[in-house]
């Protein structure tokens, strides 16, 4: 069997996925072939190094609150949608009342009134959006102990 094919098998040998026949092929080949035996040893050392590679662990508390974070976000979704719609309606109503005089003034052109209402609607949506973002950021500060 060609060396390249044996080397591919060697690469999987230490993962214990080869069949008995494939393992036998590798073992017999490396008895005869110095370069493949060297490859086998180097791959063994490489696997040892890789087995010690670990990604940074978060504090244990992260796992304790992980599910509750997911659950809360699932639960709160509908609440947030209703809250946002309600807040937008209320703020828009309050804003409209504040500028009612301008809107009802027949001397002001219609285009300007539409523009003013557009600015008001945009402002309200932005305010609610920023408010929600602030609350989310505060919620996420529970992870402030997590090392970055």
């Amino acid at each position, binding site marked *: 069997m060609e060396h390249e094919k044996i*080397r*591919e098998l060697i*690469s*999987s040998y230490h*993962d214990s*996925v080869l069949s008995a026949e494939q393992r036998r092929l590798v073992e017999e080949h490396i008895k005869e072939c110095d370069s493949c035996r*060297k490859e086998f040893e*180097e*791959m063994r*050392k*490489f696997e040892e*190094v*890789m*087995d*010690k*590679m*670990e*990604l*940074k*662990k*978060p504090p244990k508390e*992260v*796992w304790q609150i*992980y*599910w509750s*974070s*997911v*659950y809360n*976000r*699932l*639960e709160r979704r509908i609440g947030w949608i209703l809250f946002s719609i309600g807040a937008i309606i209320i703020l828009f109503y309050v804003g409209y009342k504040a500028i009612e005089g301008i809107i009802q003034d027949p001397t002001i052109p219609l285009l300007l009134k539409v523009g003013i209402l557009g600015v008001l609607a945009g402002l309200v949506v932005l305010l609610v959006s920023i408010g929600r973002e602030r609350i989310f950021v505060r919620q*996420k500060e529970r*992870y402030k102990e*997590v*090392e*970055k």
Partner: protein
Amino acid sequence: MQQETALNGDAVLLGAKNRMLEKKVLSEREILEVVQKGNKEAYQEIVVRYMQSAYYVALAFVHNQQDALDISQDAFIRAFRRIKKFDTEKPFFPWFYKILKNLCLDYFKRRQRRHEVPLENVRVLEVEHEDREMKKALWKGIEELPPEQKEIIILRYFRQFSYQEMADVLGKPIGTIMSSLYYAKRRLKGIVGKYLGFD
């Protein structure tokens, strides 16, 4: 009346399944069938089972613990919202992995748009002092692998997935997994070799 009885029967079944869940005797498929009925408590079993894999896969992609937590949780939320479309005859994680990976890729696109700092400089490894340089170089090597090889290395060495599990998650035959792993290992072995004195 008949429909009411059927609904009551369903509720009784759900109650029984919840009690069985507490005793952890349900298979993943059975749990997911309960979740598909909108039962969030049952979903806890799935989240707890896969949260660490989800987090570490995301961390390997995004290199930031806070973002990895957020993305992995977002993926579970998104999966729950789409759970009715999930085929319970199939394993959950490969389906979930696609959602998670898409969120990680979205994260990269957002970072690119904002011209944020490259991720290579962010430390995500547990590193002992004596082999610090080698592991740093090795991680850099992993980062520079073609995307499909990088994914396989992450799943194999950082989550200890079997070849079959990797094939399921990535939707590729085992032979392709084996071959990609071989080429990835060859490249990475070259890096280790510089530190361990391979010729």
